[in-house]
């Protein structure tokens, strides 16, 4: 701490600035950073969650890595991430561009658009379970054969439902981000394109999309890291089922740790999750260049 108090501002007098960051730092270190280190440490132990913790070397890692369920859980996690990204991103960009326009009914639309953002994942999962019930749900009630499938009882259907529900919940949030991105694109670019005779579609692909590069990186980062934590939604909606069809890593961690009382292997899974998140975030940053702050100013 002495290093802190010794820091001086430009005027050479002592600055309290570093101290202002200390309360946040303490919380963050205590309940995010220490647990982060802790999860690495715990993955080399054996612990049932209640009794004493025994160091056990690589036992937990061996148990996890040789478990045939791991490749599957990794695959499902990756698939949920990739497919929900591929569904949400185009939808959010289109919606965001649309919402940034000047239609008069936009205000009413945006009022309704963001309601799914207000519901908890648990609430959404509970509602969709009832809605998709093959006997009493929406499809059965309307007499639509194609709607009254056993949605949550078939592996691929259940997977599709998870992706759909995730999109239903999060597209509003990402549209909002894209709306802001579109609103920051300098008008002069569009005017120049207009003079060159570019139509709407052409303008969208050669101006809007390239200009949104950093917004896409931001939104995708949040989307992808978020998808690693889809726990509550899947837990309430399918419990990872049918079979293991929707058992993503986060769910796997919970089930092993808090249900099967194997905290060591569960911690190893958590480490894999952390590494995945970091790797993807770094990859996206690479794609985005150094600093998203100096974004859409070229040509302005």
């Amino acid at each position: 701490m002495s290093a802190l108090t010794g820091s001086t501002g430009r005027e050479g007098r002592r600055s309290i600035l570093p101290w202002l960051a200390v309360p946040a730092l303490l919380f963050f270190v205590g309940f995010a950073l220490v647990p982060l280190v802790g999860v690495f440490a715990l993955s080399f132990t054996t612990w049932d969650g209640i009794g004493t913790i025994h160091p056990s070397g690589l036992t937990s890692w061996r148990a996890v890595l040789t478990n045939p369920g791991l490749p599957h859980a990794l695959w499902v996690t990756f698939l949920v991430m990739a497919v929900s990204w591929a569904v949400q991103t185009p939808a959010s960009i289109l919606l965001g561009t649309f919402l940034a326009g000047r239609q008069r009914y936009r205000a009413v639309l945006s009022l309704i658009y963001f309601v799914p953002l207000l519901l908890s994942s648990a609430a959404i999962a509970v509602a969709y379970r009832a809605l998709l019930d093959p006997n009493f749900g929406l499809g059965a009630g309307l007499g639509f054969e194609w709607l009254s499938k056993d949605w949550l009882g078939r592996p691929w259907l259940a997977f599709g439902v998870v992706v759909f529900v995730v999109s239903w919940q999060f597209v509003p949030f990402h549209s909002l981000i894209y709306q802001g991105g579109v609103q920051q694109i300098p008008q002069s670019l569009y005017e120049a394109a207009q003079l060159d005779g570019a139509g709407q579609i052409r303008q969208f692909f050669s101006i809007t999309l390239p200009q949104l590069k950093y917004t896409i990186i931001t939104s995708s980062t949040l989307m992808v890291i978020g998808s690693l934590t889809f726990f509550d939604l899947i837990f309430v909606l399918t419990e990872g089922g049918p079979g293991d069809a929707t058992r993503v890593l986060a769910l796997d961690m919970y089930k092993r740790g808090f249900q099967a009382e194997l905290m060591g292997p569960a911690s190893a899974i958590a480490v894999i999750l952390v590494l995945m998140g970091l790797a993807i975030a770094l990859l996206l940053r690479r794609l985005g260049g150094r600093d998203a702050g100096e974004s859409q100013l070229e040509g302005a």
Partner: protein
Amino acid sequence: MTTTLTKPQPQKTTPRERGHRPGATAHRRNWLGGLAGWLWLAVVVVPLYWILITSLKARSNYYASNPLAPPTDPTLDNYELVLESDFISYFWNSVVVTAGAVVPAVAVSFMAAYAIVRGWRMRFLRVVNGMFLMGLAIPLQATAIPVYLIIIKLQLYDSLLALILPSIAFAIPLSVLILANFIRDVPKELFDSMRVDGATEWGTLWRLAAPLTRPAILTVTIFNALTIWNGFLLPLILTQSPSQRTLPLALWTFQGEYGVNVPALLAAVVLTTLPLIILYAFGRRQLLSGLTAGFSR
């Protein structure tokens, strides 16, 4: 980047207003966007509408009627049934956890964001900033097991405080990022003139930076309230007795208890969301413009 969203700007009237596409005049609409817009609206509205009308149906009516038809005789019985359970106590637990976590989280995040913006020359603060940014790249739920261990060691297991402390920590990275983005927009001259007037950093923080970034503070408050109010994993692993239950967890247990009483279940869904709908009705503008400015850079 100059998004000066110090207040929501309703209507400027220059023809080059943001978002006004030269091509998007009255008779040349953005068809593609418009189509997507209306399509998505239907996708959003149908389930919401169904939740609402079903929660107002009597059980007998639910099985007999067309699911999309409004109830023949709307009833509040389902709501009564839910409220007769311990719903009110779960509700207060949620209020305590949300308020107890959001207020300190926003306060400490604001102080940290101010320090990071004003003191970016100091290595220590740059390191702190880097750490918070790293927190954004890590799925913090992955730390659930050590958090559970720490809470047990602190003898806080099965208490509301057990939910509050990690919630504060998890809220910090994003809050600092958004608040710092706004504090950066405060003109430097204002800080300089405060300094000339002999104000301390502490005084400048509360008398200049805080009032000028009020919309951002409100945004971060609403956003964190939303996240914490809806939190599920922490209550699931850090509490066990019904007296400490928060609403999302209660919904899950309702699903087990009410089973096939779908109208009652959906009444519970509506009730758990109601406070947020009210909050949203008041702070919608603020939340939407703030989030936009916070992320779209």
